[in-house]
């Protein structure tokens, strides 16, 4: 695809986002403020971090349905380690990240080396992680540890008296690291290559197996990181958290211009996708009178619109040849 053409899905996404934001700002008095904008990053931090990991998986042509449950598993592990075993928060989070990485690596290994469909393996992973989280602790665990509370209170001061909380900082950091990995590293190029055509990539010398292990581990790490962020946000670990988060993440990635077939798209698009989802949700909340169920319908329709746009673009590319 020629230069501009390739970016049309992302540009369309940005366009829709700006349109939505403008419409909401015109409609609601307090929408257009720095605090509201910062809140997008804070409230959607967990989803956003998960979506960054999901971007890599989808770029490689796979899918990861387990992320929501891994978020819950990670949050539960952290909360239990801190509250019941009196670990330091950072150590607990390190353990959770390790668990996420290993879990992802296991799934990636089964997918690649045992040749099972990613859908099925990550589906089983979803059940497994959710079950493990509930086994570790059935009910949510409230965290009273002062060290964690201090971490949760960290915020970067901005203008106008607003501040960027630590959860949002982690989200932005994940976006930057994700973009760097995808665009400026060999492993990122390998991910795109596999998504485009895994056989061709293999014949070119790309280490398909290792890259697949990488993307699923990365997704697991992102999910665990999101779980850690969730504990900071809610000051508790909830084994029932993250239900259907994987679907929201997939929706954000697709809306952001990454094709489900893989090979096309990227992390910046995912940011736009997350922001669009967040804007719709916030707008409906501001509206007050509309029931929040309209959010689901709106997201579904938006998803449809972006899928059709992607279809249109790829169809016109095919007709060009």
């Amino acid at each position, binding site marked *: 695809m020629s230069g501009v053409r390739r970016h049309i899905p992302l540009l369309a996404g940005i366009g829709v986002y700006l349109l939505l934001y403008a419409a909401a700002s015109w409609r609601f008095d307090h929408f257009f403020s720095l605090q509201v904008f910062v809140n997008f990053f804070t409230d959607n931090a967990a989803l956003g971090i998960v979506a960054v990991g999901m971007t890599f998986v989808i770029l490689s042509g796979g899918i990861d349905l387990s992320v929501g449950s891994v978020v819950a598993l990670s949050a539960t592990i952290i909360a239990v380690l801190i509250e019941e075993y009196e670990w330091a928060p950072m150590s607990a989070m390190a353990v959770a990240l390790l668990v996420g990485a290993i879990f992802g690596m296991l799934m990636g290994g089964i997918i690649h080396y045992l040749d099972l469909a990613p859908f099925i393996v990550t589906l089983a992973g979803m*059940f*497994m992680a959710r079950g493990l989280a509930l086994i570790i602790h*059935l009910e949510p665990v409230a965290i009273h540890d002062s060290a964690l509370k201090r971490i949760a209170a960290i915020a970067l001061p901005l203008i106008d008296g607003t501040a960027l909380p630590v959860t949002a900082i982690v989200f932005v950091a994940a976006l930057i690291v994700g973009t760097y990995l995808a665009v400026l590293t060999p492993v990122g190029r390998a991910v795109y290559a596999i998504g485009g055509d895994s056989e061709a990539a293999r014949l070119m010398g790309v280490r398909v197996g290792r890259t697949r292990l990488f993307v699923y581990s990365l997704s697991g790490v992102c999910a665990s990181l999101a779980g850690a962020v969730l504990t900071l946000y809610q000051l508790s670990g909830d084994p029932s958290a993250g239900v259907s988060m994987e679907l929201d993440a997939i*929706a954000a990635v697709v809306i952001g211009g990454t094709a489900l077939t893989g090979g096309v798209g990227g992390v910046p698009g995912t940011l736009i996708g997350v922001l669009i989802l967040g804007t719709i949700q916030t707008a409906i909340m501001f509206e007050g009178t509309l*029931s929040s169920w309209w959010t689901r319908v709106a997201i579904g329709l938006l998803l449809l619109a972006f899928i059709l746009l992607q279809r249109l673009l790829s169809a016109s590319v095919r007709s060009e040849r």
Partner: protein
Amino acid sequence: MTDARLSRRLFRSATFRRLAVLLLIWLINAMVTPNFGRFEIRDGRLFGSIVDVLHRGAPVMLLAVGMTLVISVRGIDLSVGSIMAIAGALAAQLIAVHDQPLVVVVGLPLAAAVICGVWNGLLVTALGVQPIVATLILLVAGRGVAQLVTGGQIITFERPAFEFLGTGAMLGVPFTIWLVVMVAATVGAGLRITSLGMYVEAIGGNERAARLCGLRVRTIQVLAYATSGLCAGLAGLIATADIKAADPNNCGLYIELDAILAVVIGGTSLSGGRARLVGALVGALIMQTLTTTLLMRGVGPEYALVAKAVAVIVICLAYTVRARELAAGLVPRRLRTE
């Protein structure tokens, strides 16, 4: 000679092996779990753990029937849970708020479910959207629609004629089981007796070749999704009738995953092809047996999740590796290229 061939064919049959696995599980269960193998008749109605498994597994079995068709044509239907919720919500509204006759209470939700299925089918065939994404849309939006129908509330109702769908019994056997048998038999007959079955598997095997052979590929695919929708509608009706309430938040939540697992355990490949309907039913029962047994032993449902996950991976692995071994074993040595 004929007898030997038949028994050999039977043992090679993937479906028979799975049925054997299920019966083996039930047998072991009957021996180790107290009261599992017991049947008793109370008030002219059959009771027992196995009956319970069949009854509780009915919604997933119904979904698995439709899902088998969809997966056989290389598709997938993630929206069946939301379609269940829509059907249940409509039925409850029609009874509780609009007091409609039974025909409408049953007919309208089923019609809506079929329309949802056709919607999915058209997205996939006419607009060329990938099945995962196409049905993801309805999965996300459909639950919102169900919630809008009931205004976000749980609607309870009293209508004995409708409740029969979920709680009634004919000849002592729960109606839900009869429904599963009827639907599975109808679809199964359609697959094996008519040429529709051959068409479905041809499309799943190689869509382009099927189209070049003159098959109405798009029509059959839409039919598959419509059937899946219908099955979801039926499942939603019996689920709603069972609890005498429509819960748009929880009805059918995540049940599509159980249905997909059931179909895959049953031996239908996700890349399409041979439709193993009985296998899918067996797969659903295997999972339901796991869940019910753990429940009977006082083990929490969270262990059932882990057990399901392990079971799926193990069975899928066994199917893959074994299939390759068997296939290699069938090819005479001198014809093998490896």
